[in-house]
C-alpha cells in the first residue's frame, strides 16, 4: 500500500481497492444505474474474449490490426532530432496506422468486441475527430452502424475528420452544450448509451470512463509499447532511458508506457497541454489548459474517480488546448495512479511550444505530426537533458487533420520557425 492510500483511508473513504477496475484510489464505476448491467456485461466480455481469447478474438484482432490497420508501425531513428537534442531519438510512428493515429488500435478492438457481443450498433464521442474517424473506419470495415457525437467547436476545428466519418457512412451528431468540446461530447454519448443500452456498445475513445474501459483500452493500445520495446532492443540493442507521450485522456500514453512500466530504468513522461496558462479561472469556470495530471485534483467524472480540472465546489471546468484531442478536463485513472506512485512524471508544454514543435518535426524529419503528438516533441525539445541517452517519442498521429487550425494559429503568432505564408498573398487567396 502506498502512502497515498493511507491518507485516503483517514479521509473516511472506503472504496475497496481490491475490486477489479481500481488503480489505487482511482477508477471505479460511477455511472447511472441503467448502464450498470451493460458495464458488467462488457466486463464479462472483456475477460472472456480479450483476456481469454475466447472464440479466437485476440487472433482475429491481431490479424485485422495487421491487414487492415497496417501494423506493426516502424520505430524510426530520427537523425536530425538526435543531433539537435544530443540524444538518440527514436520515433514510434503511430501516425502511420491506418486512419493516421493510434486511435484505430482501440476502435478496431472495441468494434470487433461489440460484434462478438452481438451488439447491433456502436456510438462514440470524439474530440479531434481522430477517434471518431477510427471508429467510423472500423465500423465500416466490420459492417456495424455507427453514430459519433462531437462538440460544435471541435467540428469547426476538425472539418476534414468530420467529412471522413461521413465518407465512411457514420452519422455525426453536433453537441453544442458548454464549450462544445470533448467533455460535452462524452456526456451526450453516455445519454445515447443509457437510452439504447440493450443493443448498443459505447466505443469510448481513451483510457477513461467506468471499469472495464480504462483497462480494456489500455490493453488494446499496449500493442504500441509491445512493438516499441522489441524494436528498440533490436535496433539499438538496449532499452530506452525514457519514453515520451502526450496525454489527453491518456490512451496513447498508456499504450506507449504499459510494457515499460516494469522496467524501472525507463523514465516515463506524460506530456499534457499547458494551453495558454496553468491557472484556472474559477469565475469563468475555465482552465486555459488541459493539464489535469499536473494541476488537477481528485474527483469523479464520466464514470471514474480520477484527477480532473474542477473548481472548489466540484464543478468540472472547461479545458483548453490548441489541440482538440488533448482538450479534456479529466485523464485516465491508471495514469493518475502511476503519477501518484511516481512511476510516471507529468509535464506540460504550452500552445506556442506545441506549434513550434509541429513545425520543427515537419522541417527536421519530414513528418507532419498531429498537434497532440507535437506536445510530446515539444517537451523533448525543451528538456533534452531529462531524456537520458536514448529516448522513444510516441508520434501518436499525423497532422493532416490539423492543417486548417495550424494555418490559423500560426498566423496569429510570431513563431520563430514557421514557414512564410507569402506564397498565398502573392497569388491571392
Amino acid at each position: 500500500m502506498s502512502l497515498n492510500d493511507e491518507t485516503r483511508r483517514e479521509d473516511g473513504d472506503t472504496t475497496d481497492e481490491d475490486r477489479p477496475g481500481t488503480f489505487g484510489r482511482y477508477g471505479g464505476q460511477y455511472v447511472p444505474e441503467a448502464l450498470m448491467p451493460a458495464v458488467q456485461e462488457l466486463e464479462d466480455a472483456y475477460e472472456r474474449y480479450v483476456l481469454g481469447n475466447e472464440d479466437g478474438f485476440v487472433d482475429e484482432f491481431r490479424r485485422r490490426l495487421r491487414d487492415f490497420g497496417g501494423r506493426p508501425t516502424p520505430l524510426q531513428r530520427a537523425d536530425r532530432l538526435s543531433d539537435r537534442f544530443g540524444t538518440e531519438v527514436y520515433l514510434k510512428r503511430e501516425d502511420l496506422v491506418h486512419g493516421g493515429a493510434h486511435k484505430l488500435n482501440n476502435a478496431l478492438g472495441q468494434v470487433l468486441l461489440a460484434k462478438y457481443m452481438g451488439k447491433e450498433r456502436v456510438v462514440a464521442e470524439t474530440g479531434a475527430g481522430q477517434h471518431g474517424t477510427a471508429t467510423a473506419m472500423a465500423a465500416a470495415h466490420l459492417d456495424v452502424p455507427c453514430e459519433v457525437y462531437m462538440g460544435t467547436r471541435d467540428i469547426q476545428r476538425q472539418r476534414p475528420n468530420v467529412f471522413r466519418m461521413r465518407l465512411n457512412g457514420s452519422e455525426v451528431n453536433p453537441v453544442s452544450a458548454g464549450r462544445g468540446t470533448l467533455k460535452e461530447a462524452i456526456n451526450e454519448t453516455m445519454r445515447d448509451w443509457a437510452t439504447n443500452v440493450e443493443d448498443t456498445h459505447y466505443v469510448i475513445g481513451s483510457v477513461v470512463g467506468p471499469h472495464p474501459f480504462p483497462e480494456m483500452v489500455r490493453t488494446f493500445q499496449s500493442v504500441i509499447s509491445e512493438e516499441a520495446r522489441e524494436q528498440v532492443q533490436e535496433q539499438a540493442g538496449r532499452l530506452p532511458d525514457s519514453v515520451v507521450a502526450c496525454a489527453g485522456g491518456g490512451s496513447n500514453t498508456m499504450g506507449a508506457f504499459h510494457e515499460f512500466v516494469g522496467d524501472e530504468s525507463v523514465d516515463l513522461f506524460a506530456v499534457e497541454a499547458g494551453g495558454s496558462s496553468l491557472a484556472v479561472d474559477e469565475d469563468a469556470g475555465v482552465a486555459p489548459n488541459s493539464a489535469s495530471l499536473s494541476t488537477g485534483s481528485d474527483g469523479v467524472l464520466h464514470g471514474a474517480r480520477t484527477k480532473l480540472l474542477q473548481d472548489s465546489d466540484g464543478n468540472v471546468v472547461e479545458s483548453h488546448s490548441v489541440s482538440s484531442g488533448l482538450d479534456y478536463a479529466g485523464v485516465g485513472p491508471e495514469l493518475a495512479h502511476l503519477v501518484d506512485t511516481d512511476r510516471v512524471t507529468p509535464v506540460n508544454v504550452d500552445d506556442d511550444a506545441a506549434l513550434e514543435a509541429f513545425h520543427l518535426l515537419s522541417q527536421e524529419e519530414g513528418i507532419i505530426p498531429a498537434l497532440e503528438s507535437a506536445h510530446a516533441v515539444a517537451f523533448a525539445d525543451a528538456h533534452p537533458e531529462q531524456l537520458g541517452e536514448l529516448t522513444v517519442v510516441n508520434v501518436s498521429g499525423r497532422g493532416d487533420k490539423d492543417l486548417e487550425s495550424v494555418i490559423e494559429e500560426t498566423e496569429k503568432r510570431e513563431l520563430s520557425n514557421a514557414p512564410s505564408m507569402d506564397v498565398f498573398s502573392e497569388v491571392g487567396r
Partner: protein
Amino acid sequence: MSDLEAAFDEPAFVPYLCVGDPSVERTREYVQALVRGGADVLELGLPFSEPIAEGPTIQGSVVRALEAGVTPEVYLDFVESLDVDVPVVCMTYYNLLYQYGDSDGPESFVARAAEVGISGFVIPDLPAEEAGPLRAACDEHGLDLVFIVAPTTAGERLERMVELSSGYLYVQARLGVTGAKADVSDQTAESLAKVSQYDIPKAVGFGVSSGDQARHIVEAGADGVIVGSALVDIVAEFGDADGDDVPDRLEAMARELSEGVTAGAEDMAKPEGQ
C-alpha cells in the same frame, strides 16, 4: 420510520425542480406553489456541471442554475431557509458531495445536509457498487439514500440495491434520460412488478407529464409519482418574464398531478369490477 417513508403512507406526488432556475428567490416561490398544489415530498436539484442522466429539459435547467451562481453552499442555505412542511430530497451528482468540505469523501456534505433539514439523497451517478461511503455517512446522520431501479436492473443487483436503499425506491419508468413523454411506457408495469415483493415505498419517475399518467402509474401499483421535466418545462417557457404567472401554472400542474395520484389510489381501493 423516516420522514420520507412516512410521506408515502398515502400515494405521494413528488415534484422536482433545480434550485436556482432562474434564480434562488424564484425557486422559493415555485416550491411554495408546488406545496400548495399538493406536493408530498420535494426533490430539489443541486446543479452539477455534468448532468449525464438528464435529458435536454433538466440539463437546460441545471445550466441556468449554475449561471445563476448556485453552489452547494448556496443550495444548503436555501434549503435551511425554506419554510415548508414536506420532506426535501437532495438530487445531485457524486462529485459535489465528494468535494465538499476539507477532506475527500461525502461525510461533510451529509453532516451539513442533516443540519439544514434534508431528509435524503438521490445520486444518479452512484450505483450500489460505489455507494458504501455515502450509505455509511447517511446512516450516521439519519438520512435516507434513495436508489434508482432501472428497467435493466435485475437479479442479485436488484436485491443488493433494495437492501441498500431507504426512504423509497426510485423506479425509472423507461430506459434513457429524464424528459417528459406523452405516454406511459410499458416498462413501468413490468418494473413495478419486479419490485412489488419488497417492503419499501416505490415511486415512479422519468417521463411523467400528466394527471392521467400519474393515475395509471398508481393504479399499476406505485406508491408515488416523481415529476421533473414537465414542471421544468413550465419554468423554461414562462420563467424569465417580469410578473409572470409561473407559480400559478406550477400550482395548477401540481394539483393535476396530485389529484391524478389520489384518483389512482381510489381506483385501487375500489373492489374489483366496479
